[in-house]
């Protein structure tokens, strides 16, 4: 028990010192608030449902974007991993588009799609295509050649080859890619909301800041951290229960 408490001592001490400093120095700030005020604001926002509604909006956009972007990345990744010709042909195009920061598309996305889920999903999807594509391409390209030979000997059709040999062999890394992309999806979704989109957790931060409520603003920030942590824990758990040992790769074993 004592061993479990030890790692918590430092953060708790830091919070107490911060609280004491804010109170004793009577700091008046529009950006900082004592931890106790943040905790109260967090409880209030949870109680009135506004925080949960914002979390739903952000997660819905992040997951929808992840699904669309991940699917595109997966299909392209498998195609490019299987065909060297295609991979060489697409290399310049992909490497030219990939470095564009997804957030840089915001002005265009706003005029084309307007505020709301559609714009956010489109930007999240753009950001999620690349990690899934790159990792899938590498995973498929790195499949043991003898497995491909087996497929050829069995005279499997192209579709069966992908379904029965390629995907199962590359699955652990693909799942890892999706977990990576899920983290990116949440970051991009919140960023889009902070920059433009008037919904979700990011917009909550901005509204609280403009309403001169640093306590609420920081409560949103803490909540985003909690959400990110929970998301990662849930995905790791899902990965292990759905795929068991097959999901373990060298990278995350």
């Amino acid at each position, binding site marked *: 028990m004592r061993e479990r408490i030890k790692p918590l001592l430092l953060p708790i001490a830091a919070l107490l010192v911060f609280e004491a400093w804010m109170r004793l120095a009577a700091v*008046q*700030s*529009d*950006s*900082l608030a004592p931890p106790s005020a943040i905790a109260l604001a967090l409880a209030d926002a949870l109680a009135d449902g506004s925080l949960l509604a914002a979390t739903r909006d952000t997660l*819905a*956009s992040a*997951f*929808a*974007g*992840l*699904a*669309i972007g*991940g*699917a595109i990345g997966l299909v392209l990744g498998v195609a490019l991993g299987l065909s060297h010709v295609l991979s060489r042909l697409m290399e310049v195009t992909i490497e030219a588009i990939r470095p564009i920061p997804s957030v840089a598309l915001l*002005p265009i996305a*706003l*005029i*084309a*799609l*307007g*505020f*709301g*889920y*559609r714009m956010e*999903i489109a930007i999240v999807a753009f950001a999620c295509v690349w990690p899934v594509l790159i990792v899938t391409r590498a995973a498929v390209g790195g499949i043991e050649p003898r497995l491909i030979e087996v497929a050829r000997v069995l005279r499997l059709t192209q579709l069966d080859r992908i379904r029965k040999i390629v995907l199962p062999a590359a699955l652990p890394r693909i799942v890892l890619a*999706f977990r990576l992309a899920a983290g990116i999806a949440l970051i991009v979704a919140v960023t889009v909301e902070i920059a*433009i989109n*008037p919904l979700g957790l990011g*917009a909550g931060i*901005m*509204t*609280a*800041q*403009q*309403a*001169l*409520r640093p306590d609420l603003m920081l409560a949103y920030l803490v909540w985003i951290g909690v959400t990110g942590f929970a998301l990662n824990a849930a*995905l790791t758990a*899902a990965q292990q229960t*759905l795929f068991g040992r097959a999901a373990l790769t060298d990278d995350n074993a």
Partner: protein
Amino acid sequence: MRHRLTGAVVGSVLTAFALTSAALAQKIQIGCTATSDCASAMIAVDEGIFKKHGLDAEMVLIGINSNIPAAILSNSIQIGGPTSTVFLQAADGGLDLVAVSGASIMNKTSNDAIAAFVRNGITINSPQDFKGRKVGAPGIGAFLHVLFVKWLVEKGVDPKSVNFVEVTFPTMADTIKSGGVDAVLTAEPFVMRMSNANLGTVGARYAAELARTEPIIFYAASREWAEKNPATVKKFRAAIAEAAPIVNNDRDKASAAIAKFTKQPLDLVKLTAPNQSEPMLKPEQLAWWIDVMSAQKMLQTKLDLKKLILD
């Protein structure tokens, strides 16, 4: 795998939902920033004045004013409250926007509320003292920045000798305190809050010295939407005309509506008078802005005054 499926389902349901709600859009959405300038629309929502005129209207809080023209063109909002400078720059850039009704104008109260607030350790005795200083504006080319540059020019100070940076309103107090900038261009209630916290002094009441009466913010729409919906525009104008006197005469109702929309604490909102609401908008009021902005090289084309305001 299951996660992806759920995600896909949620996504497509949401997209379908967004599409159908856009198709049914009888409702008009009015986008404004968290200031008192659109108080007439806030009152019209809260007091049921839009409803009385047969309009189903709701207000959308927009973080940055310069996003409003793009939001209007994408039909996310049908009517928005851009500042005069944002509107004219958007029109100058080729966005086909048209003003439909007045929102707020400068008057003595609002001009007195504007200040260049200077941090401790710096003394400003004359406009010349701003030379070489780092001055934070809520946006480069924003209302307060353009006014300040106009004031500098009138006082014979070259604006290029002042180093302007962007500092948003909520971060002004902390930026002044840390010495990140020498002065900020701000307005009430921020001036009072920073004065009370002994963060510095008022260096110049530049808006009061300019003493202008032109519009700060007005309601604008895309020309296409406004021409397709003349009846809606007419109802909107009538409702705003009815709500404006309430903003100007009933401080309690106005404060309540502003606090509700901006989510700012009511006590804080009550401290400052809302900007004067003025539903009428005349071409000559925009002429001054065009002159000022052209002189500051913010406009590239020659804007046709008659086309900027809907008849």
